[in-house]
Every structure is written in structure tokens, then in C-alpha cells.
């Protein structure tokens, strides 16, 4: 999978929040096989030096070997997201940015107008933008026009674990943008849901809570890695078309006539 001219081996992208401990986070990243992890920027307390606060977390992430995708989580305006992206580029040393501009504090759904505005600014400044968006096709068109080369439609609201809420709309999106890397971001709660997204032909999935809040996050990370691989392999193999009626898989031809009755 190529994301902005970078070859990424794994189709699973993993968030780094809410894990029980830094050790479990490190082990979960390794167990998932993911090649990209997300991170954020948050306020640092006075008195923090090189070995404390965010610096310790940053060392842990670098040691994981995964590529960094910083986000603008929590931003509610285009200006706020753009400034956060500028700060992230300096700290994380990458022009990749997961662009989140939240439109509603309860649903955490993207504000598509501010999202397009921020994407246009950031793309013009050389950022490689991964916009967290809905399945709306016109918003997607505008994001591509703004310069985005990857789109990240939601599966369900962030942290909800509800899977793919709008399967038909997501299928339309996949069909409408066959050449654009599409990553399902947010709402995935179970490996089967990740596999479903991959079977539909999405290029990757990005998830966090489903692994971090699992009873055993490391085992769950491994399960998601396998589900994403299985779903992708199934998509490439070509799924059978669904039928409305039963069709026997065992041949009828050559079946014995034992003359013992039963409906014809």
C-alpha cells in the first residue's frame, strides 16, 4: 500500500491512546504488525525536561519503529487545526498529518466545511494530509481537489465500536474513488468489522479503542492484524456474489434414487 509515495507494509494503523501502560502499548504495536501509529500534541507542564512528560512517550514511539501520523484531535476550527499541524510537523518531524476538525462535541463528527478549508491550507503548505471525513462523496471530491491523496472516512463515531454504520454509502465511496487510498478511521470495535471493511476493498483501517480497551490489548492487537490480513486476502481473492436463493454445493447429477420417498 502506498500512502503519499511511502510504501507501507501493513494495512492496519494503530492509535496509541488509552492503553493500560506504556509497556502494553509497546507490545500491542509489535503484536499488531502495524506500520503506522497515530499520536497527538498536548500541553506540557512546566519543569518537564528531556526525560519526562511527552519526551518519554516520544522515545517509546520512536523505538517502536512505526511511522508517525500525528493528529489534530480535539480541534474545532480550521485555524486551530492548521496551527496544531504546524506544531506537529516540527515535533514529529513529518509532513504527514491526520486532519481532524470536529464539528460536534457529542458525536465527534467531522465539520466538513472547516475540514476542506484546513486541508486546502495545509496541502498548499506541503503537508501530506489524511483527512478524517464522512462517507459524503462531494466532501471527498473537495478534499481531493484541495490536494489530499488519501481519505479516511469514518466507520462509526469515534470510540463507539459500532463497526460500519453506513455500509451502502461506504461501498459507494469505494466504488466512486477506485484509485484513492481509503482508510476506515474510527468506530471499529471488533476484528470482524475490520475484516468486513477490508473485504469491501478499503485499503486499510485505523483503530485505537478496540485494542486499547480490550481485556488483553496485546492479544487483541494480534487478532486485528490477522483480521485485516484475512479481509484483504479475501478482497484480492474475489468474493462470490450473494444469491437470494439456495444453490446446492453438492452436485445433483448422479445422485442415487433409493425410492424411499420424500418430497420431489
Amino acid at each position, binding site marked *: 500500500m502506498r500512502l503519499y509515495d511511502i510504501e507501507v507494509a501493513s494495512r492496519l494503523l494503530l492509535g496509541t491512546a488509552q492503553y493500560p501502560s506504556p509497556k502494553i502499548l509497546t507490545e500491542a504495536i509489535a503484536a499488531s504488525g502495524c506500520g503506522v501509529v497515530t499520536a497527538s500534541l498536548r500541553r506540557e507542564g512546566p519543569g518537564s525536561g528531556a526525560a519526562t512528560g511527552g*519526551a518519554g512517550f516520544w522515545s517509546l514511539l520512536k523505538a517502536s519503529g512505526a511511522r508517525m501520523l500525528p493528529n489534530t484531535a480535539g480541534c474545532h476550527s480550521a485555524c486551530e487545526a492548521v496551527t496544531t499541524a504546524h506544531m506537529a510537523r516540527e515535533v514529529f518531524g513529518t509532513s504527514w498529518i491526520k486532519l481532524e476538525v470536529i464539528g460536534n462535541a457529542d458525536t465527534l463528527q467531522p465539520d466538513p466545511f472547516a475540514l476542506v478549508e484546513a486541508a486546502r491550507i495545509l496541502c498548499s503548505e506541503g503537508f501530506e494530509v489524511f483527512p478524517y471525513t464522512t462517507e459524503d462523496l462531494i466532501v471527498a471530491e473537495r478534499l481531493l481537489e484541495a490536494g489530499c491523496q488519501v481519505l479516511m472516512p469514518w466507520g462509526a463515531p469515534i470510540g463507539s465500536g459500532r463497526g460500519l454504520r453506513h455500509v451502502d454509502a461506504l461501498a459507494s465511496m469505494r466504488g466512486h474513488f477506485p484509485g484513492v487510498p481509503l482508510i476506515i478511521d474510527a468506530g471499529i470495535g471488533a476484528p470482524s468489522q475490520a475484516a468486513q471493511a477490508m473485504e469491501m476493498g478499503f485499503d486499510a483501517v485505523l483503530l485505537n479503542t478496540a485494542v486499547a480497551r480490550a481485556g488483553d490489548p496485546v492479544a487483541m492487537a494480534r487478532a486485528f492484524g490477522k483480521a485485516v490480513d484475512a479481509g484483504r486476502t479475501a478482497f484480492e481473492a474475489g468474493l462470490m456474489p450473494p444469491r437470494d436463493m439456495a444453490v446446492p454445493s453438492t452436485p445433483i447429477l448422479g445422485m442415487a434414487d433409493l425410492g424411499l420417498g420424500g418430497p420431489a
Partner: protein
Amino acid sequence: MRIDLNGTTFTVVAQSLAEMLIELGFDGGTIATAVNGIFVPAAARAGTRLHAGDRIEVLAPMQGG
């Protein structure tokens, strides 16, 4: 001079953003800075003069989804 740092008021003698970071013990950390909502790159911190009432954000890498 009183400034607002990450939502809390501090009184500092520093005149520049770079001096303020040292005064409040941020030196050596992996941080990014903004003053009054505008990103200030690391290279520009020494040349960024502070004024009373400035709103300063100092951010660091953190867990995120």
C-alpha cells in the same frame, strides 16, 4: 511580567519565548510552541519577544488516536 502559559497565569522575568522556556524548566524537552494562537518555530523562539498577557501554548507528543 504576567503571561498565560497553557491556561495558567505565571509571572516571569524572561523577555523572550526562549528565555521563558528556560526559566520555567522546559529546556531539553521535545516541545512545540505557539504564542497568541500562532505557531512559533524553535528557531524563532529567541527572537520572539513576550508581552504582558500573551497566551503561550507549549505542547509535547502525547498518546492519540
